[in-house]
């Protein structure tokens, strides 16, 4: 009989190995799924994992990886700080939208004036927009004890209405022949978040994501605030005993995740997307929650997880186009990845023991 035994302390080796084991298990189980659907499993796996990186059209897909991965990593890093402390910001999607609106608003207000300071101002406004939106659940939680999960989630829908109103009203392109949506910032040089190296996909958002990873790593491992975040998540009473101020921690965690989500929105609207449109948001704020957990709330893990997530999205699209795999099969495949990761994660704290049952 197989039983689970709690380890005396978490296994370091397993916490590093589980993501790899999970990816392998997903490949096996996913391959079976594709085989049942009548597709060549090896070809499907190869299409998803190999084609975007090293295939014939990789020159097109590789920049896409950065474009898709950067906002995921940027948002997930912010979320992971709160998640580690047991502060659940589920509304990054709303903060992402508000960051885009604030940032784009500043850019559009300057149109058509050209100046070097416009883009930096937009960046500040974008971060501020996300921060303001995250401060609403933070203030309500610290002042009235409301549940930040519900408040932040509901504010996503408020933000979506706000976005629609802006795209159809205040920010609508006056020269857009009545179509909804703002001016295209890609055509406004001072506001355009262009690729730093043409065609590489490497825009300012990618740089910001890398800086965020380093910032979070230093914060969590070398700074008192990060130590307090970890302590609060692991043992709230011990954190209080150590002298952690819960109010300040909530404001810091929600504020930081709001800023990062807002920046992600700003870099998207001023770069790859280019304009404020009704359907500007595509769920990065929600997918980032998965990325944060897939990366085990560790900055480097999140960087890798964001890359992996972007890979399965792009690889999935290719598989749909080339192999006629149904899109739901791709979603099941992505679900499997999360499932296996969480399942194998158990082995960090528990070990399997094969032996006779023992009454304890």
């Amino acid at each position: 009989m197989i039983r689970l035994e709690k380890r005396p302390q978490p296994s370091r080796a397993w916490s590093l190995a589980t993501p790899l084991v999970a990816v392998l298990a997903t490949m096996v189980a996913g391959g079976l799924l594709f085989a049942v659907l009548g597709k060549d499993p090896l070809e499907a796996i190869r299409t998803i994992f190999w084609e975007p990186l090293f295939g014939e059209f990789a020159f097109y897909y590789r920049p896409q990886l950065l474009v898709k991965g950067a906002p995921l990593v940027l948002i997930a890093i912010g979320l992971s700080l709160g998640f580690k402390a047991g502060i659940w910001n589920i509304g990054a999607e709303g903060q992402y939208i508000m960051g885009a609106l604030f940032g784009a608003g500043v850019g559009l207000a300057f149109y058509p004036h050209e100046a070097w300071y416009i883009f930096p101002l937009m960046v500040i406004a974008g971060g501020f927009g996300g921060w303001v939106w995250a401060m609403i659940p933070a203030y309500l939680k610290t002042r009235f004890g409301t549940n930040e999960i519900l408040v932040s989630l509901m504010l996503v829908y408020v933000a979506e209405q706000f976005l629609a109103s802006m795209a159809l009203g205040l920010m609508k392109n006056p020269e857009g022949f009545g179509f909804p949506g703002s001016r295209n910032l890609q055509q406004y040089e001072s506001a355009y978040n262009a690729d730093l190296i043409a065609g590489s996909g490497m825009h300012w958002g990618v740089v910001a994501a890398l800086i965020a990873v380093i910032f979070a790593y230093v914060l969590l491992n070398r700074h008192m605030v990060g130590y307090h975040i970890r302590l609060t998540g692991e043992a709230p009473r011990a954190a209080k005993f150590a002298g952690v101020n819960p109010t300040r921690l909530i404001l810091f965690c929600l504020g930081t995740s709001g800023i990062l989500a807002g920046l992600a929105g700003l870099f998207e609207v001023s770069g790859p997307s280019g304009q404020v449109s009704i359907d500007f948001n595509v769920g990065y704020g929600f997918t980032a929650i998965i990325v944060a957990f897939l990366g085990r709330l560790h900055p480097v893990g999140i960087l890798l997880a964001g890359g992996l997530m972007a890979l399965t999205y792009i690889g999935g699209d290719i598989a749909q186009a080339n192999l006629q795999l149904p899109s739901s099969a791709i979603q099941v495949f992505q679900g499997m990845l999360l499932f296996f990761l969480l399942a194998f994660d158990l082995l960090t704290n528990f070990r399997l023991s094969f032996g006779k049952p023992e009454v304890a």
Partner: protein
Amino acid sequence: MTEVLLSLKGLTKAYPGVVANDTVSFDIGAGEVHALLGENGAGKSTLVKMIYGLVKPDSGEMTLRGAPFAPAEPRQARADGIAMVFQHFSLFDALNVAENIALGMENPPKMGDLASRIREVSETYGLPLDPYRTVGDLSAGERQRVEIIRCLLQDPKLLIMDEPTSVLTPQEVDILFQTLEKLRAEGTSILYISHKLEEIRTLCDHATILRLGKNVGECIPAETSASEMAELMVGSALTPPERGDREFGEVALDISGLSVPSPSAFGTALRNVHLTVRKGEILGIGGVAGNGQDELLSVLSGETLTEADAVKLGKTPIGRLGPVARRTLGVLAAPEERLGHAAAPDMSLTENAMLTGATREGLEKNGFLKWSAAKEFAERVIKDFDVRTPGPENAARSLSGGNLQKFVIGREVLQRPEVLVVNQPTWGVDASAAAAIRQSLLDLAAGGAAVVCISQDLDELMEISDNFAALNEGRLSAPRAAAGLTVEEIGLMMGGAHGMEVAHV
């Protein structure tokens, strides 16, 4: 001895890394009060869990009245007439006595019938108890009565009691003993687990002593001196802590008119607490668990804030300062709950050294952490306090209770506190480690620190404190010199019998 009720032969139970019981054999006679004596971790609990069917022995056998006895689960043990009163009660605060008892029964009768049976049993055994009172309102002694009556309703042949007096005042202990005497007179056997020697000498007919899982001796307590039993239990003669002569300096900690509302529905409010502790003095604070000990500690550690003037360090008001500010001033604390309060279970000892040591040991600079300094500090605690662990990189939860306790106390003592507050400093710690911890508190006081020791172990408090006060329902009695206090006086300071009716036996 008369007829044998339960006989244990060669019971052995091993857990990974430790043999909890190693070929333990003894007999319990019918109508006998049998003591099971041993230190924390000697294997007493594992042994009674085997008798009660909670744990299955690896080898060995038991016979009940000559017939083989191997209960697979507690229900079976209960059917064979074995009942157990656990050290930690399993009662629901929000339900009344009868409802709580009904919850533990296989086929509970109607509430009215049950209530009258509870009355009947409680009167027969001198344990007056109203079946319709809410458990949340009962004192610890009365809660224990609920557990005992729950057992007596099964008409047991053997009643197992695990450390029953740890939650009682001396007066309440007297009442309990009268009940146990009555049960014995009726022919019920009692297996009485304790490490309190005087109790055992008063009550028990026979004693079996366990050390490191082995039966190391049996004796008739009435004919054996307490020190002989202690030596059997510990394995060597213990050196009692040295007090040394100390001069008291000026007042270091001054609490006046402190009232704090209860933090939760079943917590305790502190009411008008006054106390002063001088430099070099150890103030012992006794009292039954749940009378405001945790609340008092959190007021002193800075986890609960009060009016500024209610708590003063010398002449400085510190009531509104949080834990970090108090540590900076030299007010340190070690809470009772080791895992989750004093230490984070999954964090390493180095990280746990950072938990309270950051300010005073200079483990941070501008918010940036110096992990190598924290590691050195953790190593110093491990070395000076003889913490048994392979190294500071191990998680706190991997340490045994006693070792983690030494780490937690050592972490505060080594930070040279002006005022140190400890709650249950030796709870669940073996005798030699407990002696070391007590000695370190005495040494700290000798060095001029003021020490407040909150504990439920009266022997410990008498051993180390200069002055003694007791908490009772959130009120603190006036402190008195510890030397010369009698058990009766201490009991009255703790609240006497808490208005519990005396057994009518």
